[in-house]
């Protein structure tokens, strides 16, 4: 009986794994199958030329650059907001603090809000300040979107820092400000994971940049110019009735996947390098 039970659950787990891996493989297969034939050097080195919706000329450099700018900018901005928050609720506030719990709860709620809401919120802000759709607008909207992810995943690691470690640093006569460096080193793997998660979310999100960053055929040269993004490039091209243009959407998806892969590998490599001294 117990053996049957074990067998049952084991089968269930294996099936679940197969479903997950299977869907992932199918998605990758579809992307590669339709995207790869449409891939060529122009795709990643040229901006679109001649009517984007109908055209088959030129490439996606505008969207690649726009996406990278937005991801880098928003991750930077997000870290600038989230690291002080995580430090504050874990070092400065006492262990059972209402404010800390409230912050955690809020970031959980913010985490669940659909990205279109961030887009709309960002857009409202921009209207209020009289800004046009721009790279800056996109960066701000995406930063808002990923900040809860950053806070939550860094907090998970920061919360389990042994009290002994803080006590050890404090008992050397360090102030709370001075132990921040120690804490940051200790949670550096958590920071890497947080960045990875949020980069994945930031680069793949279309809704938050739709109203805020806009779209353009050019590479933005300043923060106030609109910026194209890969998810929107996929969206617009997939909406086209022309099969060749649709194939270009798959090529864009392939590029997106590739960028995420490269960023993940890089983050892993650097996290290993930097967390060498971790306990």
């Amino acid at each position, binding site marked *: 009986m117990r053996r049957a039970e074990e067998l049952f659950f084991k089968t269930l787990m294996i099936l679940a794994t197969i479903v997950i891996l299977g869907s992932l493989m199918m998605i990758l297969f579809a992307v590669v199958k339709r995207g790869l034939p449409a891939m060529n050097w122009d795709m990643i080195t040229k901006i679109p030329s001649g009517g984007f919706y109908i055209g088959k000329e030129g490439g996606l450099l505008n969207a690649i650059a726009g996406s990278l700018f937005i991801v880098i900018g928003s991750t930077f901005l997000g870290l600038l907001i989230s690291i002080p928050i995580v430090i504050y609720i874990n070092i400065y506030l006492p*262990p059972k603090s209402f404010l800390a719990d409230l912050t955690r709860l809020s970031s959980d709620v913010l985490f669940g809000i659909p990205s279109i809401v961030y887009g709309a919120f960002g857009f409202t802000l921009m209207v209020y300040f009289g800004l046009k759709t721009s790279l800056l607008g996109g960066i701000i909207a995406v930063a808002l979107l990923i900040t809860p992810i950053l806070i939550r995943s860094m907090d998970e690691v920061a919360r389990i820092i042994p*009290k002994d*470690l803080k*006590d*050890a640093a*404090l008992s*050397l006569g360090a102030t709370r400000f001075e132990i921040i460096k*120690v804490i940051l*080193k200790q949670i550096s793997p958590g920071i890497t994971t947080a960045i990875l998660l949020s980069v994945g979310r930031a680069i793949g999100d279309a809704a938050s940049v739709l109203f805020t960053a806009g779209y353009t055929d050019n590479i933005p040269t300043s923060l106030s110019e609109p910026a194209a993004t890969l998810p929107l490039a996929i969206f617009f091209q997939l909406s086209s009735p022309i099969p060749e243009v649709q194939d270009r959407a798959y090529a864009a998806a392939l590029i997106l996947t590739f960028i995420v892969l490269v960023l993940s590998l890089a983050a892993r490599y650097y996290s290993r390098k930097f967390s060498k001294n971790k306990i």
Partner: protein
Amino acid sequence: MKTMKYPTEENYYDEVLTIVNDKNKKTMPSSNSNAPHISVRNLNVYIQRNHILKNINLDIPNKSITCIIGPSGCGKTTLLKTFNRLLERSNEIKITGEVLVDGENIHDPHIDITHIRKKMGLLSQRPCPLPMSIYDNIAYGPKIHGTRNRKQLDAIVEKYLNAAGLWDEVKDRLHAPANRLSIGQQQRLCLARGLAVEPEVILGDEATSALDPISSKKIEELFVQLKEEYSIALVTHTLRQAQRIADYIVFMYLGEVVEAGPAAEVFNNPKEKLTREYLSGYFS
């Protein structure tokens, strides 16, 4: 009596305190001509309204080893943490009475808390190296207290690694991560790290309980050497250890100091029945 209040506290305990009298007042005779290094006067500690330390009076004599013994949960760690004010980091703590270090009340609201902590090196139960290299672990303290000169730092690192008997084992890999060391080495590293900020007192909380017998013995020997220059207060989990190294014994039970005095006296001729029972292994 000085009273510290925390914002979350009401005056709840003031009433309680008037009831507590000094019937338990026990002060250790100081055989040294020196004044005691740490004096505890009528110390009461409440954690979440539980009376954890009850009217503690004791002295930690200068340049000797004082071992604090007692069954687990009797408040030894709490006592040690009040000495360098690490207790207040938790919620709902109320402390009354005085802890005098060199005659200065460390709970005085005007006192610089880092100055107090710098005076005391703390060695915790499990070694807790900072997430950095061996070198940086030692240099961390001196650096935050203002030593920037590389040559000076090098000298400090060598000196205190030597003091902790670790130099020969690690001199070729000073920049390797500290967590690569064995547990016993890590504990000696933590000792060296504590010494590097030039404390006057060393506090140890069951500092050898996580170690193998050989490392444990090394640490014990270090304590015996170090008492020439430092006052040492150790919470010990084994009576044997206390018998080997203690000059003074403080026996605690349920948050109170039951008996305190020179080690030979307490071990050979305990005054209290409770102490006798504890020493004979009647309970632990």
